[in-house]
């Protein structure tokens, strides 16, 4: 039987996927790296991973159920390039005044990334704290669902783009059961190592 925290994490990913509407992409695990171009504009990513679990003794009994206070991290990553009238700047026929106006028109990537990140927080916040999603889509009762923290990190200059990431901390609690699992054996691989210069083909002897 699968533990409830895994079901909840899976449900949370499914819930975020169902509400993407082209505004972001959901990934069900923590990725070490994302290229700036990968998360550019609406390729913004939302990564969900189980960060921490507390099992307080006071809320549990010896043979279960065990109260499980869960902390999920939802990592948000956005990336932006500057936007402006580059066509005028690359046009040999443009005048000095037109080029001046074109440079002044640029919106800097840091400001765009900051806005994009805030917008993404807005989307994800609305999905997770919607009253209809009190169970985070799990289909069973989840206790104390709460979004306890929103964090924004510093800009990362990934190549020629700016990447901005941060995290939402989501906490909830559930009861875990121990069902007495019968282990299923994995595949046993029988490896016979033959050494070419061993006439007896006795394999490798460890001493």
């Amino acid at each position, binding site marked *: 039987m699968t533990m409830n925290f895994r079901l909840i994490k899976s449900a949370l990913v499914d819930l975020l996927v169902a509400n993407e509407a082209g505004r972001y992409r959901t990934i069900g695990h923590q990725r070490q790296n994302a290229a700036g171009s990968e998360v550019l504009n609406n390729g913004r990513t939302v990564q969900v991973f189980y960060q921490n679990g507390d099992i307080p003794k006071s809320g549990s009994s010896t043979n279960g159920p065990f109260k499980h206070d869960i902390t999920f991290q939802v990592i948000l990553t956005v990336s932006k390039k500057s936007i402006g009238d580059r066509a005028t700047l690359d046009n040999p026929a443009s005048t000095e005044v037109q080029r001046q106006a074109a440079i002044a028109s640029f919106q800097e990537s840091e400001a765009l990334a900051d806005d994009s990140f805030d917008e993404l927080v807005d989307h994800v916040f609305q999905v997770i704290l919607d009253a209809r999603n009190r169970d985070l889509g799990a289909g069973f009762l989840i206790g104390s669902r709460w979004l306890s923290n929103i964090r924004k990190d510093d800009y990362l200059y990934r190549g020629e783009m*700016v990447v901005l990431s941060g995290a939402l901390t989501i906490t909830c609690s559930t009861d875990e059961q121990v069902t007495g699992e019968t282990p299923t054996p994995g595949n046993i691989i029988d490896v016979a190592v033959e050494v070419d210069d061993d006439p007896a083909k006795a394999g490798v002897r460890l001493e």
Partner: protein
Amino acid sequence: MTNLRELAESDLLDTLEGDWGLPVELVSPDGVEYKTSANDPTKDLVGQILYDTIVQNPDTGSEMVLHKPVVTLRRTSLARIPVSGELWWVRIPLTPSYTAQKVGFLLEQATEDGGSIGFIRLYLQAAEQSVP
């Protein structure tokens, strides 16, 4: 007696603007284009362009190669020197070839000064066309 700093600066004619040099075009915030060297207006403005940069991955600590053009120019070749905080448009060849088509980048990140050793380093960022 020759001053060593002056000698180092004059060496930039070879190290930055010599055989390794690639043409660079600058557009200042007031729209003025700089395509030729202030030292010799009959010559193109050239400098050293590094297209990729090796940096340390902040997530893993390992090294990674980023596409991030960095342009190093001789300060005396510039009629106006970019100052940190100014938005400039910088056109460089798309590939490391003198005759390659040029592509524009925004000079957005702070410049690295190097005033006492005669060069300036520009970090470029990609830019998208805005929708009219």
